[in-house]
């Protein structure tokens, strides 16, 4: 029997969200609270092909496999998180490999269920919040409207307006361009100062993983929009990536037992260099 797309969905969280397991967990909890049971799926086995976009044949194989796995799962709706995955599904994946599901971004789903979500946002979150907004993706999915509207339902939280829009659909696209990420961060800090914001709400994971180090530059909080909803709903979590990234010693912050259990060599080669990377900007100095 086909699963009801309104109440049973696949949550396609992408690949690099593996850095933020708590966000995947929180999204499933929030969706469940508004009546949607979500089965998370992500990582390299569910790749959109983006990491191999410079070779269409390889990307095509990865993308086709992902569409076929979603088809086999039998859920009629795939709820996306990552804007790259979402646009690749629309533009390059579903047109090539027939998809037996519809695609909806997580912000659209929660915006459509705002009336159900609103009464669940009971805990005040006193914060003056600026959205980390990008130009891109908003033309496809109105994230720059939907996310602030959702956050504005949180008691005690004030959403602030500023015209700053960072180029790209998320920060990972500008990161390879020399100086662009630092420029975006400096402009963001200026916008926060102009508006009197004390909290920066990131929308996407790639922005979040770079922006968390801004907490080392200024006395601000950087939180993903899902974290803020979780605060208001009383859902417990720890933004571990932020803790590790801002720790003087990430190894100590994580703990040797946990590192050994996860694979010490892989940690040293693949994880630790990223966590020890100097912040893009530090202590307010350009």
């Amino acid at each position: 029997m086909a699963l009801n797309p309104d109440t049973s969905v696949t949550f396609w969280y992408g690949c690099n969200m593996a850095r933020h397991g708590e966000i995947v967990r929180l999204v499933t909890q929030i969706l469940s609270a508004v009546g949607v049971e979500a089965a998370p799926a992500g990582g390299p086995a569910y790749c959109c092909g983006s990491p191999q976009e410079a070779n269409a044949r390889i990307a095509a194989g990865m993308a086709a496999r992902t569409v076929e796995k979603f088809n086999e799962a039998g859920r009629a709706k795939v709820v996306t998180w990552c804007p790259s995955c979402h646009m690749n599904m629309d533009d390059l994946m579903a047109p090539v490999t027939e998809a037996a599901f519809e695609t909806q971004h997580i912000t659209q789903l929660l915006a459509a269920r705002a009336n159900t979500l609103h009464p669940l946002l009971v805990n005040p979150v006193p914060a003056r919040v600026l959205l980390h907004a990008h130009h891109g993706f908003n033309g496809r999915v109105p994230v720059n409207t939907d996310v602030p509207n959702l956050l504005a339902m949180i008691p005690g939280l004030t959403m602030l307006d500023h015209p700053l829009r960072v180029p790209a659909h998320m920060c990972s696209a500008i990161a390879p361009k020399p100086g662009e990420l630092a420029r975006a961060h400096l402009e963001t800090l200026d916008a926060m100062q102009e508006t009197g914001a004390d909290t920066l709400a990131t929308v996407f994971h790639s922005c979040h993983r770079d922006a968390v180090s801004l907490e080392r530059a200024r006395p601000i909080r950087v939180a993903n929009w899902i974290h803020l909803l979780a605060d208001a709903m009383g859902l417990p979590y720890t933004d571990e990536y932020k803790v590790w990234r801002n720790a003087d010693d990430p190894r100590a912050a994580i703990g040797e037992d946990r590192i050994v259990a996860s694979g010490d060599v892989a940690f040293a080669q693949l994880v630790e260099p990223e966590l020890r990377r100097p912040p893009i900007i530090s202590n307010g100095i350009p």
Partner: protein
Amino acid sequence: MRPSEQTLVAYIRDNSARLAAACTACGECYRACPMVARTPALADATPAAVMAGIRDILNDAQGTPEAIAFAGACVRSGVCTEACPEKLDAAFLMRLASLRVKGALGDPPRVTTKHDPRWSARVKAFARLTMTEQERTEWL
């Protein structure tokens, strides 16, 4: 042939040709792009000439250095689509041009791209830290 029967390569070629034919190379998308002022290689470029070069790229030609630089500078801001007077999906047009200068169709790359050869292993290494064994079994 149904789209689902096409390969991605054929799909990129077909849509490249379609959008190149529809584009008038008026340059409005170029003028709107936030990356133009941030790309030194475009300092002396003219919008119509760059977009004529983009059409060439989409039609399997090499493209001018400025057109290659513009395609390589694309970060998917999407403001080009709003600016297009022909109501084309200019963001998709630029995405296709960007894929092509990166060598997606097998040609030698015309721009330098960032590629993480250990991306898959890195994702899994982070997952082993942030997800439980059961979560990894069910979610990855």
